[in-house]
């Protein structure tokens, strides 16, 4: 279990001071595939480097199973990193790279050899053991970097956008491979990405970061279905935002009145307003079209866009604004609706999410 307690990092001083991490609080569980997700420059790498020991936080504490990590030098921490650039040693072979950490730990020679063999097998690189790292492809380098970091059996593996340099197909393969390695080794993975799809498919839990702070932590489903803030809803997937009035709120259950006058039950994020004007977020695929007069929000269909797997219906709401409904395509359902038609948008109870801000 890694506990990150109010970690703050300020780069520079005076007028040029920059707060890269702002009181970050998070607890990462044993054997978890934990993802840090956020836009470029939000502090993901900085947080990872604090854990690895390459950045000293300005304030805060980091503990691993209760032991203070900040007291230890990088080479004393049972934490290994897969660097974004891989940082393989160019003067060593694949096998030497993988064995380096074990050698530095002073493990006996035959144990090093055996473990390197196992690791090569694990990442399916046995044939290329004696190649130089400059003589293998990007995807293979990626696997060597992974094996090198896994070989000393760290308690925590930090991965800084390890897949971003790979092409689409290879990326998909490696995503599965990473999941397999994580469950086979039982090591805690802390994975950094700015690719929301990657985060959703791979993680046990996701922390969404923005401007040096964690905005929400939860399972992929949680984060996707119940974004707590506008930033999270916007950053992950597509979202319709509706102005609404909060009528009542009881724990996570909220009654809201939409601009059209219709009332509906929604979920409420923790914190936030108790009454008054709020924003309601609804995923396009969680809503549907209804004949005029039946749904919650009447409007006029302005566009119908065919995407192969699904079709997007753009509705200009009578109450103002635009709402997108996404519906999956099936071969036996011909879409009869055409732009210009009068329709209504509808969605079920507890589908809409009342945002914190």
């Amino acid at each position, binding site marked *: 279990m890694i506990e990150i307690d109010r970690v703050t990092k300020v780069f520079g001083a005076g007028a040029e001071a920059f707060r890269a991490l702002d009181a970050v609080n998070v607890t990462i569980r044993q054997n978890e595939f934990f993802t840090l997700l956020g836009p470029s420059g939000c502090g993901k790498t900085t947080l990872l480097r604090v854990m690895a020991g*390459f950045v000293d936080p300005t304030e805060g504490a980091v503990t691993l199973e209760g032991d203070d990590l900040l007291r230890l030098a990088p080479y*004393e921490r049972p934490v*290994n*990193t897969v660097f974004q*650039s891989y*940082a393989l040693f160019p003067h060593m072979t694949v096998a030497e790279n993988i064995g*380096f950490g074990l050698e530095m730990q002073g493990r006996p020679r035959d144990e090093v050899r055996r473990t390197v063999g196992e690791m090569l097998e694990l990442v399916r690189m046995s044939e290329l053991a004696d190649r*130089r790292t*400059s003589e293998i492809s990007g995807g293979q380098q990626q696997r060597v970097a992974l094996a090198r970091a896994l070989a000393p059996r760290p308690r925590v593996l930090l991965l800084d956008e390890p897949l971003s340099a790979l092409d689409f197909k290879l990326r998909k393969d490696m995503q599965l491979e990473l999941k397999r390695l994580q469950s086979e080794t039982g090591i805690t993975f802390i994975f950094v990405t700015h690719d929301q799809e990657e985060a959703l498919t791979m993680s046990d839990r996701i922390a969404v970061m923005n401007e040096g702070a964690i905005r929400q932590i939860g399972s992929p489903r949680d984060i996707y279905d119940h974004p707590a803030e506008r930033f999270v809803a916007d950053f992950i997937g597509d979202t319709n935002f509706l102005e609404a009035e909060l009528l009542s709120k009881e724990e996570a259950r909220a009654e809201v009145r939409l601009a059209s006058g219709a009332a509906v039950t929604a979920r409420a994020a923790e914190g936030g307003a108790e009454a008054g004007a709020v924003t309601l977020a609804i995923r396009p695929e969680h809503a549907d079209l209804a004949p005029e007069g039946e749904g919650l929000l009447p409007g006029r269909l302005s566009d119908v866009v065919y995407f192969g797997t699904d079709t997007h219906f753009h509705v200009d709401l009578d109450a103002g604004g635009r709402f997108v409904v996404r519906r999956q395509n099936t071969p036996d359902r011909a879409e009869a609706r055409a732009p210009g038609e009068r329709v209504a948008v509808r969605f079920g109870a507890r589908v809409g999410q009342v945002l914190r801000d």
Partner: protein
Amino acid sequence: MAGTASARPAPARDLAAARRREERRTRALLLAPAMAILIFAASGPLLIVLAYSFLTPGDYGGVVWEFSLKAWFNVFAERDFFTGEIELADAHLSIFWRSIKLSAMTTALCLLIGFPTAYFIATRPRKTRDFWMLLVIIPFWTNLLIRTFAIMELIRNEGTVNSFLIWTGLIDTPIQMMFTEFALLVGMAYVYLPLMILPVYAALERFDFRLVEAGYDLYAGRWQVLRRIVLPLAKPGVVAGSILVFVPCLGAYVTPRVLGGGKNMMLGNFIELQFGQGRNWPLGAALALTLLVIVMAALIVYVRAVGREEGGRHG
């Protein structure tokens, strides 16, 4: 149909061959001036020196065109003036030995000082690196003699170092540093240090310092990161720097003359002596060629030894 298929590649092959010939001719023409200079400026004088080493010394310098092996014999051995016995030329051998020893020590000292310096500069922010390099290079633009006299000013008996030590009361009589091998070592290290720093810096500047982090991440301490990651990758620079320092040291002339006095003669001074007061040009020529052979042998041994350890490739 079969005829056309096989006939087709033939002209293409001719064309390719013609183009290669053309390229070769162009390259030869372009290289010609450089080759001419190399041949006449490098091997020309060398051939003259080689020829002189097999001639007889003239009474007032120069050579007499009379074949003789005496000069080569005298490089390593001498005939006792009275008994006529042949014995090793101890004086010559000790000069060879001192030259090699001092050059090796100077190279080591330059590496010891130059590597950390180059590392320091290479790890500064990009903006300030040029400034630091300028500090290294400026002395290099100053006349060699002036730099040598500057060292002399520092270490002579009434010089800065001794005056300071006496002033602090650490010593009461000056430490004799001039005209010792120590003076030679300090002087040559100072003079040739930039030649070490420049290539090492060039290698370290291309070095990807993220590899250092990767090393720390994989349980390597500072010393191991240096030995296992930085040094192997900076090796081309270290090799080049060592050669650039060692070779001119072996033939150094001005610095030993000023700082070493007559007692601590090095090969360069000894060779000069043969062409000057010694009036033994053939011996000078033979000694110069011997120096050349030593340099080449040392380089071959060194490069072999360094190249044998695995690694050394960059990027």
